[in-house]
C-alpha cells in the first residue's frame, strides 16, 4: 500500500542514490533483515550449539555436523550408505525425474498455448485452466490420489475388472511412482508460467525468418525457440528443484512415509527438541540448494534477461 511496493520508480530529479532512495529501500530491507537474515543467522549459530533432552546449550561444537555425516565415509556392515547420503541420493533422484517431466510437459503445454492458440482470449482461459490444481489445498490434492490409485482404487478396479491384471497393482500408491506423479501434478504449473512468459516475448518475425531460411519445424524449435526460452526454463527449474529438495509433505503422504526426505528428518528432529541437529541439517540442505541455484544461474543472467 505504500512506497515499498514501487522501489525502483525513477526519481524525477536525481536518478542516483539520493537519501530518498535509501529511505525507499529501507522498509523492504528491514523486513528482509528481520525475517530472513536474522533467522538464518540464528539457524547457523544454533547449528554449532549443543543440546540435551529438553534444552539447547550455547557453545561451539561441530558435533551436530559430525552427527549428520556419521558413518558416511564407508558403507555399514549390511552394505548400506549412511542415512544422510541415502536421503540426499533419493531426493536428487526425485529432483531429476520431476524436473525432467515437468520440463517436457510444461514446455509442451506452453508451446501449445503460445504458438498454436491464436486468440488471446482462449489463451487466457487455457492458461487459467492450468492453475486449477492450485484451487484446492496441497494436502487435499494429494489425498485425492489415494481413492484413485489405492489397492481398491479406481485404476485398479478398472484394470482388474477388464482382466488386464489378475492382482491389484501395488506400486501405484505409496511408492516412488506415486511421489513423482504427485510432484509432477503439483509443480508443472511452475514450469508453464515462466516458459509461457518467455515464449510470448519471442518476436514472431524471427520464426518467420527461420522458416524463410529453410529451417524445419524441429530446427526452429531447437535453434530459435529453446534458446530464447532459456530464461523461462531456468526460472522454472529453480522453482521446481528448490521445492522438491525441501519437500517432505508430498513425499510423506504419497510415499506412505516410508521414503526419506531431508525435510522429514529435520521435522522429526525439531519434534524431539534436537534443534541444533536440525539446524545443522538445514544448513547443509541450504548449502546444497544454493549451489544448485548458483550453477543454474551461471547458465543465464536472469537479471539481464527479465
Amino acid at each position, binding site marked *: *500500500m*505504500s*512506497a515499498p*511496493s*514501487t522501489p525502483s*520508480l525513477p*526519481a*524525477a*530529479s536525481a536518478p542516483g542514490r*539520493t*537519501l*530518498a532512495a535509501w*529511505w*525507499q529501500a529501507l*522498509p523492504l530491507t528491514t523486513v528482509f533483515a528481520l525475517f530472513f537474515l536474522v533467522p538464518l543467522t540464528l539457524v547457523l549459530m544454533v547449528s554449532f550449539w549443543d543440546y540435551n*533432552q*529438553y*534444552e539447547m546449550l550455547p557453545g561451539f561444537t561441530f558435533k551436530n555436523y559430525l*552427527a549428520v555425516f*556419521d558413518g558416511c565415509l564407508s558403507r555399514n556392515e549390511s552394505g*548400506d550408505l549412511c*542415512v544422510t547420503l*541415502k*536421503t540426499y541420493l*533419493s531426493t536428487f533422484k526425485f529432483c531429476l525425474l520431476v524436473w525432467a517431466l515437468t520440463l517436457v510437459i510444461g514446455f509442451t503445454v506452453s508451446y501449445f498455448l503460445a504458438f498454436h492458440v491464436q486468440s488471446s482470449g482462449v489463451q487466457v482461459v487455457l492458461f487459467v485452466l492450468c492453475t486449477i490444481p492450485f484451487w484446492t489445498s496441497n494436502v487435499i490434492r494429494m*489425498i485425492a490420489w*489415494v*481413492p484413485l490409485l*489405492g*489397492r*481398491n482404487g479406481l485404476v485398479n478396479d478398472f484394470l482388474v475388472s477388464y482382466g488386464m491384471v489378475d492382482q491389484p497393482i*501395488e506400486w501405484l*500408491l*505409496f511408492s516412488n511412482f506415486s511421489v513423482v506423479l504427485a510432484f509432477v501434478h503439483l509443480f508443472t504449473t511452475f514450469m508453464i508460467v515462466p516458459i509461457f512468459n518467455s515464449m510470448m516475448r519471442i518476436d514472431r518475425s524471427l520464426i518467420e525468418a527461420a522458416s524463410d531460411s529453410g529451417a524445419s519445424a524441429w530446427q526452429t524449435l531447437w535453434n530459435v525457440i529453446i534458446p530464447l526460452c532459456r530464461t523461462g526454463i531456468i526460472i522454472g527449474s529453480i522453482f521446481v528443484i528448490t521445492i522438491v529438495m525441501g519437500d517432505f509433505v508430498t513425499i*510423506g503422504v504419497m510415499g*506412505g*512415509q*516410508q521414503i*526419506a526426505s531431508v525435510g*522429514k*528428518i529435520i521435522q*522429526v*528432529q*525439531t*519434534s*524431539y*527438541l*534436537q534443534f541444533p*541437529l536440525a539446524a545443522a541439517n538445514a544448513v547443509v540442505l541450504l548449502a546444497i540448494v544454493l549451489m544448485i541455484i548458483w550453477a543454474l544461474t551461471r547458465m543465464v543472467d536472469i537479471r539481464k534477461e527479465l
Partner: protein
Amino acid sequence: MADDLKDTLSKAAPMQRRSLLKGTAGILAAGVFPAVHSADQLVLRYLGTATNQDKDIADKFEKDTGIKIQYVAVTTDDVTKRAVTAPNSFDLIDTEYFSLKNIVPTGNLKGIDTKRIKNADKITSLFTTGMVAGKAVGDQGTAPKKTIFLEGEKSKVFAKSPTQYMSLIPTTYNADTLGIRPDLIKRPISSWAELLNPEFKGKAAILNIPSIGIMDAAMVVEAMGIYKYPDKGNMTKKEIDLTIKTLIEAKKQGQFRSLWKDFNESVNLMASGEVVIQSMWSPAVTAVRTKGIACTFQPLKEGYRAWASGFGLPATLSGKKLDGAYEFINWFLDGWAGAYLNRQGYYSAVLETAKSKMEAYEWAYWMEGKPAAQDIKSPHGDLLAKKGEVRDGGSYEQRMGGIACWNAVMDENAYMVQKWNEFVAA
C-alpha cells in the same frame, strides 16, 4: 495507489515524498490496527492434540461456568515442543505423562495443588500407585506413577512418593494394541508377532512417532522371541540397534504398506483396506467402525502398550486465569466429561463420577465388559455396537490389568530418534 504515488512524486518535492514515507513509517510503528480489546469473558487457551479436544466438552463447560475454552490443536510431539519453547502460549496443557521427562526439568509447569482439586483422592489408583483392582500392572517405560508427583509447586524433579503436588491431573488414558480388519484376515490374531508376519506383507503399518513406534516394535520383537528386554521403555543403544534392525529387515522385504503419523491417516489406511493389521489408537478403531467397516482393537497375549494424558498448568499462570484453570479441571473430573470420554472408548480419571452420568447399560458395556443390553451409540449418535456385542478387551480390570508397558522417553532418546530416521530412510 501506484498512480497516486506517481502523481505525488512527479508533482515534485522530495520533501513531500519523505513526509509520506515518514507518515507510513509512523503508522507502521504505531501498529496499523487498533488493539482489539477482548470482552470480559475469561478465555482459557487449551493446548493439546486434536483427539482430546472435543467441541462438545468446551461448549458444555462454557454453558456451565461461562468460561470459554479455546482449543490449540497440535501433534503429540508439538505439544512438548510448545511446552518447552513457548510456555506462555497456553493456559492449560493436555499432554502425555511420558512427555513430562522433557517438560518438567525446564520448570515450565506448575505443580497442581491437589487441595484445590475436589476429586483428587478419587483419581484411579493406576496413576497414583500403578495398581488396578489391587494388582500391580506392568510399569516398563514412563508409567504415570513415576512422574505424577512433584516435590513442590515450583519443582523441576519428580517426587519418589505421593505429595500434595501433581504434575498432571489425568484426563484420559487407554491401553493400545494392534487394530485389525477381521473380515480381511479371517483368522484369529493373538500375538504382537503377527505385525511382522510375512502373511501380511504389504498390508501392515506401524506408526511413525518414534517414541511410540519403538515401543510397538519392542512388543513385536519380544513376541517373536528374538530378545527379552529388561525395560522396553528404557533401551540401551544395543537394544535400540536390534529393534531397528528388525524393523529395517521387515521394511526391506516390503512388510509395511505405509507408516502413519496422524490419527486420520490410520483411519484411512484401515478403512480403504490398504492395511489389514497395524498399530492403532482406540478412537481410530471407533472411527473405522462408524463407517460400517469391521475393525477390531485386538487384545493380544503379550499385553497392551498403555498411555495416559493429563492437564498441566504453565508455571506463569496466575490470578483469574489460574482460578479458571482449576475450575476447568474440577469440572472435568466431575463426571460429565468423564462419561463423554468413556463413551468414546477412553477411560476417565475418576470413575465413580463418570458412572453417575452414564446409563447402567452403557457402564456395563464400556467398563464391565458385559454384552450390550441395547445398541451402543457414540456421543454423536453413531452406532458403535449392536445389542449383544462385547467390547474388545473386556472389562476395565481385564484391559488395564493387561498393561505390559507405557509410552516412554528413553535416556537414549537422541540415539533412538537417529536410528528411527535410519529405519524411515532404509
